[in-house]
């Protein structure tokens, strides 16, 4: 993997769920929605209330969970390292954040672009949604 950064650190490009904008904390705060959130915020109008899927955390574990430690599952890649970049949150996310994360991951993102990036706000859902 071509990486601009140490595999142990990541960048959070999503403003959803953690109360702030893009920052170096890629922790997964979950995408669970309360009924109050669905009814009070128009951007959640097409989503349903429910617990978090923890989809990103689950997928990360499938790929690279530590093996042979008697904890949870074993990742399929014994020596794989992940660079977590969170681009989705409650009710999905935006192409602009996904694209920014892709460019950042490959080291193809410039500081100037960060401010100028603009894409149609097409809402996406995580792949586990059916």
């Amino acid at each position, binding site marked *: 993997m071509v990486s601009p950064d140490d595999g142990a650190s990541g960048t959070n490009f999503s403003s959803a769920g953690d109360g702030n904008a893009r920052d170096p904390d890629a922790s997964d705060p979950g995408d669970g929605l309360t009924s109050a959130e669905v009814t009070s915020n128009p951007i959640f109008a097409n989503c349903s209330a429910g617990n978090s899927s923890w989809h990103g955390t689950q997928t990360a574990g499938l790929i690279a969970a530590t093996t042979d430690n008697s904890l949870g599952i074993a990742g399929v890649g014994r020596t794989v390292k992940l660079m977590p970049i969170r681009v989705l949150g409650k009710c999905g996310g935006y192409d602009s954040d*996904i694209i920014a994360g892709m460019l950042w991951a490959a080291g193809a993102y410039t500081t100037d672009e960060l401010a100028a990036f603009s*894409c149609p706000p097409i809402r996406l859902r995580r792949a586990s949604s059916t």
Partner: protein
Amino acid sequence: MSLGGTQACSQGYIDTIGRVNAKGAVVVVAAGNSGGNAVGSPANCPGALGVAGLRHVGDKVGYSDLGPEITIAAPAGNCVNTGAARPASIRS
């Protein structure tokens, strides 16, 4: 990336994947889990490596989307787990 939408591949994704590929990196994207429908975006984009899901006997698991944009398939859910604590299906 385990995400996607139902739209066609946008020019923004085409440009982005081209730039990522030019850096020597591969973009791997889940085909989608909408029950055998068309491959989602950006898995349907030129240069993206779209991934479908297989069940335990080796054919496509029902929920995995399918189309000519698929590059590889890998084990997904629908495994034979009969215990009370069986895990949830593994979706890409």
